[in-house]
């Protein structure tokens, strides 16, 4: 690795990095708009100026790459003055409508002005006005006045999706972003342009005016929209989820996520199951637990092997493991199956996967996945415990087959067709409300964290099953994620040597995947 000097400090910088990346690694901020690691160097904003030793004029940091003996300074008075001057140009025609701009609070122009600008405005001419609040696509709203013309959005549509909807038209200070006539910004990844936009020029129509960003609390989570398992920042305020933003993970989703995934959170805000139900009537939690215990006891006396536990690929790996153990040890049945009737999604080569379930690979890993859940239901039995799985919603036929069971207990997150048919319903916490992991289609175990408290009487599947088991005389001893992981890491060979801490922010591949990739590396 070449040795370079930044502000008099010598560092070993990886080859191929530019000075913005090196400085960021050292905790030095070089303000910039147009450069983004996912879109490469464009060099049009001219804000990331640095002084390079041996060069008379300031250079742009984004296009200055690491080389042996390079010495740069980012903190000289000349650089500070130049940054201030460049920022002044950006602000010439920028409207000061921060109070009603959705970007304010996470706007780079605001941040840079506060950190590097702080000048008195010298403009006494009227500002140039452009179009405001224009829908450029089904999900994106454009405010041309706020745009700094960094072309991140243009390059995203050209280079990442390859759809090329956006362009800059006109010259000088009349330049503005626009779409081709009759070709709106409707590609399935269009909302990434909103994340990329450093200012409030492109905003999400769905999130528009819903909540100011400083009220949002951010949690590192995983998108449950499809089997890709994009890493996300889950943002909620007072229990309502407002948006998902992609979180960088080079192995899974790089910097992006799809528009469908971004709207997959509505299910956690709407028509939620909040209280236990018996025959459609709300009952207290303690009564519900007693009724479930009674039902299990009766079914166990008659035909333990006939009891079916229907799990879902929407459940966390820990919940699946807990439910499998519960079925085998408490119910005494081997009929633990996970499956789904949900229709497949559209798949493409960028991120989206056809499989709509975030944890199908986890079900396969635990040996409980079945493609033919219908025939499993067809067999019937004395009792079916359906966990977090709406069988009757996407498949009315499956709803009919549920009637073959004498009693149906649904542990559900939402009120749906299955909870309508169940004799007993107990609410459980969906993934934003509990800790856990999903295994994505690549076999990568990825951790999501609890973003908000469980709604109403809802409990995590782990905790609910522990309480039922305790009522039936067996204490599982699970209190949190780590307790289940201690068992899981021993009993599930694929998870050998892993722990929630070891997974970190970006997850780890399961053993077979790790060995397979390790083998290819050795061969190569």
């Amino acid at each position, binding site marked *: 690795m070449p040795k370079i000097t930044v502000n008099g400090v010598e560092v070993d910088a990886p080859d191929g990095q530019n000075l913005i990346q090196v400085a960021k690694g050292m905790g030095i901020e070089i303000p910039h708009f147009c450069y983004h690691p996912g879109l490469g160097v464009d060099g049009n904003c001219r804000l990331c100026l640095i002084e390079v030793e041996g060069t008379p004029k300031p250079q742009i940091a984004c296009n200055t790459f690491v080389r042996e003996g390079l010495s740069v300074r980012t903190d000289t008075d000349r650089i500070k003055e130049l940054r201030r001057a460049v920022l002044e140009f950006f602000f010439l025609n920028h409207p000061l409508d921060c109070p*009603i701009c959705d970007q304010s609070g996470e706007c780079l122009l605001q941040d840079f002005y506060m950190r590097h600008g702080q000048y008195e405005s010298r403009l006494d001419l009227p*500002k140039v*006005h452009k*179009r*405001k*609040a*224009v829908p450029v696509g089904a999900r994106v709203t454009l405010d041309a006045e706020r745009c700094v013309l960094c072309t991140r959005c243009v390059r995203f549509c050209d280079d990442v999706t390859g759809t090329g909807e956006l362009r800059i038209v006109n010259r000088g200070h009349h330049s503005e972003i626009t779409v081709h006539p009759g070709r709106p910004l409707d590609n399935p990844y269009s909302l990434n342009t909103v994340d990329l936009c450093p200012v409030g020029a492109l905003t999400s129509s769905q999130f*528009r*005016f819903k909540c100011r960003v*400083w009220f949002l609390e951010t949690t590192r989570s995983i998108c449950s929209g499809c089997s890709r398992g994009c890493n996300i920042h889950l943002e909620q305020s007072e229990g309502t989820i407002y948006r998902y933003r992609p979180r960088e993970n080079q192995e899974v989703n790089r910097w992006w996520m799809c528009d469908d995934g971004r709207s997959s959170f509505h299910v956690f805000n709407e028509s939620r199951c909040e209280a236990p139900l018996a025959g459609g009537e709300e009952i207290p939690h303690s009564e519900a637990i007693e009724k479930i215990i009674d039902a299990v006891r009766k079914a166990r006396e008659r035909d333990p092997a006939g009891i079916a536990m229907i799990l879902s690929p929407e459940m966390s790996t820990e919940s699946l493991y807990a439910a499998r153990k519960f079925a085998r040890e408490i119910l005494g049945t081997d009929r633990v199956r996970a499956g789904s009737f949900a229709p497949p999604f559209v798949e493409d080569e960028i991120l989206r996967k056809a499989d709509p379930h975030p944890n199908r690979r986890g079900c396969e890993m635990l040996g409980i996945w079945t493609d033919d859940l219908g025939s499993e239901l067809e067999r019937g039995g004395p009792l079916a415990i359906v966990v977090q799985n709406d069988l009757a919603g996407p498949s009315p036929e499956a709803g009919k087959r549920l009637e073959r069971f004498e009693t149906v207990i649904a542990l559900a997150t939402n009120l749906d067709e299955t909870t309508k048919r169940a004799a007993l319903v107990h609410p459980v916490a969906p993934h934003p409300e509990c800790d856990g992991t999903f295994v994505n289609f690549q076999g990568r175990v990825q951790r999501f964290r609890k973003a908000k408290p469980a709604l109403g009487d809802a409990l995590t599947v782990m905790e609910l099953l522990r309480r039922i088991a305790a009522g039936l005389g067996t204490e599982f001893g699970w209190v949190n994620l780590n307790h289940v992981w201690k068992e899981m890491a021993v009993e599930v060979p694929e998870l050998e040597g892993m722990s929630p801490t070891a997974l970190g922010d970006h997850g780890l591949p399961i053993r077979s995947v790790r060995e397979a990739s390790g083998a290819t590396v050795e061969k190569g």
Partner: protein
Amino acid sequence: MKVPSPRLRWYERIYLWEIARGMVVTMRHMIRNLFRQREMPTVQWPEEPKHLPVRIKGRHRLTVREDGSPKCVACYMCATACPARCIHIEAEESPEPTIEKVPKAFDIDMLRCVFCGYCVEACPEDAIRMDTGEVSIVSDNRDDFIFHMDFLLRGSGEEWKKKRGRPEPVEEDEDLSSPPDTPEETRDGYRRRERPPVPSSW
């Protein structure tokens, strides 16, 4: 630290003399007040109106534009500044092209409000004021304490002054005394910029 208690005389120790002395003070005030009722500071509220200072922070009101629509642009600055978290706003798109954002709902929970006035300070549009002078907010029902937008938009400081029969203040505060619907330019010399019309092709 030890504080020595005063040494009491024998007549102080039997208390009777001291009680009599105390009663003399009480009776003196009572008899004096019987003849000088006008000067007593007690206000027979609510039968008699209380004369409040001009700048007292009463319950909030939302100011309006000349056409009667709220000045509020739902920027949430008041809700952000509020230490009691008593302001709840829901924003929506404005039907008017020159205005971008308007409140759909603007509720103030008066049971949580601490009358600090930070919302008024924070407002960039002079859309919320606490000049109604209404300080006694009474109800037997919790729901009544949540003031909705339609109620907050009603009334002005002027109406209250007439209703309560407040005497003319000696020193008028310039900003507060001007009627709330004075056009912007004349009040503080600030001109609103005009937006260009949105092209019809969009």
